[in-house]
């Protein structure tokens, strides 16, 4: 069972995803506000913000900034579509990584020291989480009868979560990094912040900042769709799982302080990598 790749579903996926991401972002902001004893903005606030940004005057330092902002969005949409239509998971991983790389290059192509620091931090984060993603794909390959197709879990009899519990926990940590949640929000944050923490987006303004926002909405949609794959049949359990992960991320964001990049690196390459490796080794033994 896969979602058919017709022009209609393609357009639908491209149109619905950013609204879904914006809505999640709005709910997240509201929950965060309530957790802090505040009223919080309207649920549609991220939509208002993005529309406003599109109508602002663009200020650019060089035209490569535009190229990288659009590449970031383009590759993110491509990765999202590959996930929705169940294409090859390794290709998906590369496209997804290149999207983040475009963001890093966009931050690196200007001479602002804050932007450079933000980009370097994003690179550190990529170094920290990419091995985990690769291990998740290896686990994915092993449980889905040696298939790299992202549509494979939809027709599997046994949910992936039962075979990959530790990899799922590892993915939750990667999710926190990708959603810019504390304690991992060192390169950019989804909250309003000062120069260092907003580093990578600092030289973007107006419509180009909006492009990055929209790309992040796609990224959110992509990450939560990926969680659904962990329990894809029946799909409503997967959706429940994704919702639970979303609330967990909000709680984690509010409960932790921001930590340093070396701490994140050490944590990812010891605890989380160990978790992921253990799961893969156990799977290997079980298959022997």
């Amino acid at each position, binding site marked *: 069972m896969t979602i058919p790749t017709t022009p209609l579903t393609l357009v639908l996926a491209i149109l619905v995803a950013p609204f879904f991401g914006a809505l999640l972002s709005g709910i997240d902001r509201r929950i965060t*506000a309530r957790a802090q004893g505040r009223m919080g*903005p309207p649920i549609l*606030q991220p939509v*208002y*913000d993005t529309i*406003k940004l599109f*109508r602002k005057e663009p200020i650019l330092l060089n035209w490569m900034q535009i190229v990288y902002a659009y590449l970031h969005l383009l590759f993110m949409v491509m990765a999202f579509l590959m996930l929705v239509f169940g294409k090859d998971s390794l290709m998906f991983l590369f496209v997804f990584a290149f999207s983040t790389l475009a963001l890093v290059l966009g931050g690196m192509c200007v001479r602002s020291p804050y932007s450079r620091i933000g980009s370097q931090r994003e690179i550190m984060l990529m170094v920290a989480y990419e091995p985990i993603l690769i291990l998740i794909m290896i686990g994915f390959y092993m449980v889905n009868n040696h298939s790299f197709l992202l549509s494979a879990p939809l027709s599997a009899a046994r949910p992936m979560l039962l075979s990959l519990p530790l990899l799922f926990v590892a993915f939750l940590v990667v999710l926190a990094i990708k959603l810019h949640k504390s304690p991992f929000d060192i390169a950019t944050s989804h909250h309003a912040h*000062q120069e260092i923490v*907003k580093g990578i987006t600092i030289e973007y*303004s107006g419509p180009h900042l909006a492009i990055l926002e929209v790309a992040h909405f796609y990224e959110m949609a992509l990450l939560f769709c990926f969680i659904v794959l962990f329990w894809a049949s029946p799909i409503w359990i997967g959706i429940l799982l994704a919702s639970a992960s979303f609330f967990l991320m909000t709680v984690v964001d509010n409960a932790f302080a921001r930590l340093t990049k070396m701490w994140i690196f050490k944590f990812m390459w010891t605890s989380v990598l160990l978790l992921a490796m253990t799961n893969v080794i156990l799977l290997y033994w079980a298959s022997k």
Partner: protein
Amino acid sequence: MTVVPKFNKSPWVVHFNCNSCNGCDIEFLACLTPLYDLERFGILHVGNPKHADVLVVTGSVNHRNARVLKNVYDQMPDPKVVVAMGVCASTGGIFADGYNVLGGVDKVIPVDVFVPGCPARPEAMIDGVLKGAQVLQAKHSGKTPLAEKNVLTRTPTPFAAPAVLEKGASHA
């Protein structure tokens, strides 16, 4: 289908302390706390003029910081609004007679909203920023802010900076 952007629904604020005694700054930061909660109006306190719509200035302008203030203002993308927070930013306040003080913020950049008070109450500050957001909406739709004129809102004063700035540069 045209989407009408709600500029008045998401004014992002950048805060610049010119020469303030910190009273207004602390009051403005108090607006972000749970008691006043600026974010319920969609107001975000960003640290970067390139992301901001509203420039909130506290304190009077002197020769040293006039250039910096102008620079921050120039880095903001249009449409943009300036809110002079507190009596020092509005007129120079008790520092107006100081030998180094140029006066209110409107000596250097066009100001859209003046919020009086020493320091201004958080309620007045929130009101000022929201008035600024209305001016922002008016500026975006091409209307003059004069149309929405009321107690807190004033037309931008003519830009009188060059002479001041040259003077400032020679002192710096």
